[in-house]
C-alpha cells in the first residue's frame, strides 16, 4: 500500500511523506456516502480489469430523485464505476466486480440475477450519441417493444410521443418520426437516446459524459433536461466538466486513481473541499 501511495504522491506533485497523515491525505473516502432514502447502495466495490485494479473499495449511495455527479481526472475509474451500476461491464472480457451493489435492496451482482431486466431498470446514456440506424420512432419504440410494455400500436405511439416529450425532442421531430435517427444533429441524437432510455421507465439513469460530444447550446438543453428528469428518476452522471457537475447535481463524488476520495453536497465540494486532492482538482492544479 505504501508504495502505491508513494507512486501517487509522485504523480500528484508536491507531497512530502510528512504530510501523509490526517484526513486531507487519506485514501479513505471523506464525507458521508449515505443518503436518507437510497435507491442504489454500493459498498466496498472493487473492479479489476485482469490483474489491474480499476476501482478500490468504493462505497456510495444514490438517492431517490437526486443527481449524483462523478468527477475526477481521466482514468480515475468514474466511468468504470458507473458501468458497474447496470452491469454493463459484464460485456468486457476479464472484468471482475466484487463488493455489493444493491438496487432497492436487491444485490444486482447476485448469481441468480439476470442483467437483462436490470438494464431495463437502470438505463444508460452514453458519451457518444448512439441512436440505432433506424427511424426515430423505432429508436424509442424498441425498448418497450422487446419488454412488451404496451399492448397495442396506439399505446406504443402514446409511449413514444410521451418519451420524446419528456426528452424535449417532440416538437422538433413529431413530423418526421419515420426518418432515420442518425440524421439528427448531435444534441438531438443525444436527446433521442435519453428518450429511448426513459421509454422503458427505468428507476435510475446513468449518464456517461452525455454532453462531451455536444456544443454549448445543446449541452445547456441537456442539462435543463437532466434537472427536469430528477423529479422522476435517480440520475448518476459522469462528467469532465466541473461547471456541469456544479450546475446539474445535488451531490458530487470525486474519484482519483480508482479511489473515491470525497463525497458531499455539490455546494460544499466546490466551495469547501475537505481533501487536498479534491481541492487541487477543483482549483485546477491538475486533471
Amino acid at each position: 500500500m505504501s508504495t502505491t501511495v508513494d507512486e501517487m504522491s509522485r504523480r500528484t506533485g508536491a507531497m512530502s511523506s510528512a504530510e501523509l497523515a490526517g484526513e486531507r491525505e487519506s485514501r479513505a473516502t471523506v464525507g458521508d456516502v449515505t443518503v436518507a432514502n437510497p435507491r442504489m447502495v454500493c459498498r466496498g466495490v472493487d473492479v479489476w480489469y485482469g490483474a489491474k485494479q480499476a476501482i478500490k473499495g468504493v462505497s456510495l449511495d444514490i438517492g431517490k430523485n437526486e443527481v449524483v455527479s462523478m468527477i475526477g481526472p481521466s482514468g480515475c475509474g468514474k466511468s468504470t464505476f458507473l458501468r458497474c451500476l447496470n452491469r454493463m461491464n459484464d460485456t468486457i472480457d476479464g472484468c471482475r466486480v466484487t463488493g455489493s451493489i444493491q438496487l432497492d435492496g436487491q444485490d444486482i451482482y447476485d448469481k441468480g440475477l439476470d442483467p437483462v431486466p436490470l438494464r431495463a431498470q437502470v438505463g444508460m446514456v452514453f458519451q457518444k450519441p448512439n441512436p440505432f440506424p433506424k427511424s426515430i420512432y423505432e429508436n424509442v419504440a424498441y425498448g418497450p417493444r422487446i419488454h412488451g410494455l404496451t399492448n397495442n400500436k396506439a399505446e406504443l405511439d402514446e409511449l413514444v410521443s410521451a418519451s420524446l416529450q419528456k426528452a424535449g425532442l417532440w416538437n422538433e421531430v413529431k413530423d418526421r418520426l419515420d426518418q432515420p435517427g442518425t440524421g439528427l444533429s448531435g444534441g438531438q441524437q443525444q436527446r433521442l437516446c435519453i428518450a429511448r432510455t426513459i421509454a422503458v421507465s427505468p428507476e435510475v439513469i446513468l449518464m456517461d459524459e452525455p454532453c462531451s460530444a455536444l456544443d454549448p447550446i445543446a449541452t445547456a438543453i441537456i442539462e435543463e433536461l437532466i434537472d427536469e428528469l430528477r423529479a422522476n428518476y435517480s440520475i448518476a452522471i459522469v462528467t469532465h466538466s466541473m461547471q456541469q457537475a456544479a450546475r446539474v447535481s445535488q451531490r458530487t463524488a470525486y474519484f482519483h486513481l480508482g479511489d473515491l476520495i470525497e463525497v458531499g453536497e455539490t455546494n460544499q465540494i466546490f466551495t469547501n473541499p475537505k481533501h487536498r486532492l479534491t481541492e487541487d482538482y477543483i482549483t485546477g492544479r491538475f486533471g
Partner: protein
Amino acid sequence: MSNTRAAGAPPQRTIDIVNASLKRRYAKERRFRLIGLSAVVLGLLFVALLFADIIGKGYTAFQQTYIQMPITFDAAVIDPEGTRNPEILKAANYAALIRQAQREVFPEVSDRRATRALTSMISVGAPAHLRDMVMANPDLIGTTQEVWLLADDDIDMLVKGHIDRALPESERRVKDQTVGWVDRLESEGRIEKRFNTIFFTHGTSREPELAGIAGALMGTFYTLTLTLLFSFPIGVGAALYLEEFAPKNRWTDLIEVNINNLAAVPSVIFGLLGLAVFIAIFGVPRSTPLVAALVLSLMTLPIIIIASRAALKSVPPSIREAALGVGASPLQTQFHHVLPLAMPGMLTGAIIGMAHALGETAPLLMIGMIAFIVDIPSGFTSPATVLPVQIFLWADSPERAFVERTSAAIIVLLAFLILMNLTAVLLRRRFERRW
C-alpha cells in the same frame, strides 16, 4: 549542399534546404505513380488478352451450321401399314429418308465410299430430329418438305472457316470431294448458320454438334444452391458465435488460426476429404450435386466465416451498448441490431465464396463429377457435372469443334462470375452505412 554549413558558409535557411530537396521528392512520387499505373495497365492488358482470346475462339460456337434437304416422308419407310402407331413411328428408319434426300440432291454420287462421305455430312442427331417432327405431326407422312438438318461438326468447322482449305488433302479432316459438295450446297443456299440453341438446351455428347452445357448448368445450379444453403447459415452462425459469444481464450484462438488455415488449404484436399468421408463413410451417392455441395461448403465455409467476422467487427460497439443499455438480451442485440448492419458484408463474403465454388474443378474431380453424363440432372441426387468440369472435359477432347465449345462454355462461366462479383459490389454499395 548540406556540407556548405560545415564549411563555414553563412547558415542556410530551412526553407532553402526544403526547396532543394523538393525536386527529388516529387520525382520519387512521380516514379511511384508511374510504376503503379504501369502495373494496373499491365494487369488490364492481360485481362483484355484473356477475354479477347476466349471470346475470339468461342463466339462462333453460338452459331451452328444447318443443311437444307428436301425430305420426302415416305409412308413406305415410316409407316408401311398406315396404322399411325406411335411405336412404329418411333422405330422407323429416318436415316434412310436423309440418304434418299441426299441421293436426290447429289444424283451423281454412286460408289459406296462417296455415299458414306455424303451421309457423314449430316449429324447423327438429324434422324432423331425428323422422328420428333413426325411424332409431333404425323400428317407430314407422304409429303415432301425442305428441312434444315444439323450439319456434322466437320462441316460446321469448314463453313466457319476453322479448317484450312490450303492444307494438303491428306492432312485435312474434310476431303476435297466433301469441300466441293459443301461449296455447291452453299451456292444453292442450302447451307445456313443459325443461333446454336442446342448448346444451351442439351447435355454433353460425344458429337460436338450435339453437345451443350444445359446439363452442366443445371448441375452447377443445384450444387451452388445447396452449397449456399449449407455454408451461409453455418458460416454466419459460426462467425456470430466466435465473434460475439465465445469466451476469448486459447481454444478460440486455436479455432481462429485453424479457420484461417482452412481458407488456405488447396481445394483438391477437400475433394479427397469428401471422397473419404462423405462417399466412403456416409455413403452419399457420388458425382451428385449433393456430395459436390458438401465438399464445396467445406471449402467456402472459411471464406464466409472470415468475411462475416470482419463484417461483425465493423459494426461499432456503441450499437451493441445501446441495445444492451435498453435491456435487450445478447441474442436480441445480435439479431435486431448487429446482424442487419453486418449483413451486407456477410452477403458479399458469401457471394465471393460462391464465386469460388462456381469456378472450382479440382475437388469435384475427386468425387466423380468427371463422369460422362449426358442427361440433364433432375435433382440434388441425380448424377451431374458442373460447368468448370465440363470445360475441363471438353478441353481434353480432340475434335476441333470442341475447342470453340470449350471457349463458349468459358464465356458463360465468366459471365456468371462477373455477374456474381458485380452483385457483391452493388450489395456493398447499396447497403453501406456510415455512422
